[in-house]
């Protein structure tokens, strides 16, 4: 090893990386997230140990990839798997305590004649005045005591407090106080904020005052019941929701997140409504990629044979034109096909051209046909490309031998060329099946899973598992991440089985040595 100038470059790079990490760690420390600081310090130590020494040579090459893999692929997967065992979703976002605080705070009303706090609005020092979490800085009118209030509770505040003539706090250590204009810009956030206190909460009134109100809902910790003091109704915890003890009326709006074990999985398989939807989607999800792969392969192979003929002039140009559908971004072509399938003859090119009145995207069967046609158009250039490659790799002497033996052109294709091509493209067909199994973008942009029949709003006629799970998790009005995560585990297992089966039939795994 020679001492080259590169050693300097190396240490400059290490120092720069460490400086960046220290800066990031500092930001997290200021925000008070201890775990993030620990994580960043650990990464910094890894960088130093891997690149600062001459050991761990493979790690020097793997570390950047591993870092991103673990942080942004493995951790999200682990999170998703863990979520699949919970009821995390709409109305079940926080903890039980948070739901109690939230529900009580929602019922806070001002009691006539109670004194008002002088209020300043602040964000944590260094935070963004336009988006950062708001803290209310409050001064008690009776004894002048000062507090910091957030939706998590009220805390005494004394560090570096300076008060104005009205008792309003004008400075406090660790907080940046908003000026009137900034406060006004956040008036909507202000009106939503409630600081929970014993038996009620503090709400804002205008931009510089806050009142202590009483909540009509009370929590009885001993009995674990929420009691509506106005009506006397008692609510008990049941299935992560507050339900009326007498069984009459609605449950309260906010529940909490809890582990439900395998319920999401068993629901998908046993719950009548969910199961019917799930099975229906699964069947279409298995058929759709099969037809897609077969149709695109047949068309692509046909075109490849056609264009591979030496008697055709200008093959290069024709080939370039033929792969254009593949070169255009999918978000463009899928959306344009959607327009072309419009039922109205004035809008829909296909109905207009062929003089038809088919309700392409509104009829369950025709919507499936429309998807298959679109995917045929989108997918055949890829098959054309790989089949052309495979065709050109068929040795000429084999073809000549077939000719000498008196085989016809068709016979040569069927018995000589096709088997050779299939051996070559077989794994790619399996990969294509796996890809189309999760072809989210096509369905999302073309039909978004629809049409939806009758009063069925969750399961569309062209839904794949992945679009169904997406609607459950993110797209819908009442997200149910837990169930969506369980569905994605089913998808994972199916795709892994298909792919492993495909790989087993090929030699690709044997290359690992």
């Amino acid at each position, binding site marked *: 090893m020679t001492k080259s100038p590169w050693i300097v470059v190396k240490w400059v790079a290490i120092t720069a990386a460490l400086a960046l990490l220290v800066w990031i760690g500092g930001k997290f420390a200021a925000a008070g997230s201890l775990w993030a600081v620990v994580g960043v310090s650990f990464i910094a130590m890894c960088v130093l140990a891997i690149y600062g020494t001459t050991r761990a040579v493979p790690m020097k090459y793997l570390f950047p990839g591993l870092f991103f893999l673990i942080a942004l692929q493995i951790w999200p997967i682990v999170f998703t798997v863990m979520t699949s065992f919970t009821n995390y979703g709409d109305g079940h976002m926080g903890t039980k305590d948070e739901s109690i605080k939230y529900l009580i705070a929602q019922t806070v009303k001002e009691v006539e004649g109670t004194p008002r706090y002088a209020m300043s609005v602040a964000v944590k020092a260094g935070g963004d005045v336009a988006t950062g979490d708001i803290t209310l800085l409050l001064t008690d009118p009776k004894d002048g005591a000062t507090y910091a209030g957030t939706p998590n509770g009220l805390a005494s505040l004394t560090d570096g407090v300076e008060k104005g003539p009205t008792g309003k706090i004008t400075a406090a250590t660790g907080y940046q106080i908003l000026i009137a204009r900034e406060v006004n810009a956040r008036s909507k956030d202000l009106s939503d904020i409630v600081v929970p206190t014993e038996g009620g909460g503090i709400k804002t009134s205008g931009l510089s005052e806050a009142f202590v109100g009483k909540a009509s809902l009370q929590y009885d910790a001993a009995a674990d019941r929420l009691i509506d003091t106005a009506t006397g109704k008692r609510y008990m915890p049941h299935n992560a929701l507050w339900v009326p003890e007498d069984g009459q009326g609605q449950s309260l709006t906010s529940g909490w997140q809890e582990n439900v074990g395998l319920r999401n999985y068993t629901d998908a398989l046993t719950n009548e409504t969910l199961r019917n939807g799930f099975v229906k989607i699964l069947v279409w999800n298995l058929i759709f990629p099969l037809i897609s792969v077969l149709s695109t392969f047949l068309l692509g192979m046909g075109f490849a044979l056609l264009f591979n003929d030496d008697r055709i002039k200008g093959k290069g140009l024709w080939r370039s034109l033929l792969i254009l559908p593949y070169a255009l*971004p999918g978000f463009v072509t899928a959306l344009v096909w959607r327009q072309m399938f419009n039922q109205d003859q004035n809008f829909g090119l296909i109905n207009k051209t062929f003089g038809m009145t088919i309700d392409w995207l509104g009829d369950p069967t025709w919507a499936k046909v429309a998807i298959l046609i679109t995917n045929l158009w989108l997918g055949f250039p890829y098959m054309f490309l790989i089949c052309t490659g495979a065709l050109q790799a068929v040795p000429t002497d084999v073809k000549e031998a077939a000719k000498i033996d008196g085989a016809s052109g068709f016979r040569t294709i069927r018995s000589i060329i096709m088997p050779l091509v299939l051996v070559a493209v077989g794994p790619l067909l399996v990969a294509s099946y796996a890809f189309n199994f999760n072809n989210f973008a096509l369905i999302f942009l073309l039909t978004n899973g629809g049409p939806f029949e009758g009063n069925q709003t969750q399961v569309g006629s062209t839904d794949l598992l992945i679009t169904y799970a997406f609607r459950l998790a993110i797209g819908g009005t009442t997200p149910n991440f837990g169930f969506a995560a369980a569905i994605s585990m089913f998808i994972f297992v199916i795709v892994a089985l298909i792919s492993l089966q495909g790989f087993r039939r090929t030699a690709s795994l044997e290359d690992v040595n």
Partner: protein
Amino acid sequence: MTATVTSAATPAHSFDAPPTAKRRDPWQIVRYLAIGAALIFALFPIWFIVAAAVNPSGNLNTTQLIPDAFGMANYGDLTNARPFWSWYKNTLIIAGLGSIAAVFIGVCAAYAFSRLRFQGRRPGLMTLLLIQMFPSLLTFVALFRIFTDLGDVIPQFGLNTSIGLILAYLGGAMGGNVWLLKGYFDTVPKELDEAAKVDGASHARVFFTITLPLITPILVTVGMIQFIGLFNEFLLASVFLKDVDAQTLGVGLNALLTADRNKYFGAFCFGAVLASAPIVLIYLSFQKQLIGGLTAGSVK
């Protein structure tokens, strides 16, 4: 299959008796007709987009295969309604930086998997393969939470930033490319780097000065496939980029069409033509390399 019987009677002799100039092959006409049909099938939707783009009346109602007028009105509509060139810039930055970083990460990992021997190499490769099969779409919820939290502390890396989105894409950088790149490394003779090692070169020197230059062609190919993939990526971007100025072409154009399907159809098509230009150019100029990259590992 009964093809054996019919094939004997089929006079389509693809491989015997190459036609002479004198004997006109009646099948030649059929071939050209078939090619014409294939091209019409492949190109008519593209023609539809171009026709809608240059038709100045601009809405869906008047769009037809042969535009009745020609003009740039849609371009004006597009750039007046939305920050189209900001989208373009964002997309190029994200796809450009993202693909360079992804190729660098991938090539480093592939070198380790191909050339270095360490514990867990084989299971590591298999795990990478397995991870790729998880439907990444559903991890968007987790990614969204990670980047919301990150953005609260460091706004430069959060949602609505190009850097944040690039970082999110890099999660798949190692798994996505390592198999293809490793396969290519395996074809480079080991004797070359062993000879250099005997001469006293360090592993880093072997990697940067000997192996990397030898695999430049596949680096270009993988880089371009990655670029095209990121340029066209639409789903994660639509979850991450809510600010209209921070959006990419795919997210922005899709939102434009969603806003008013009829009114903005011409503007959408004009934007779509401009947005497709770089990718179409890459495809047409690097056809051979791209095809090689797409089919590598099976068609040898």
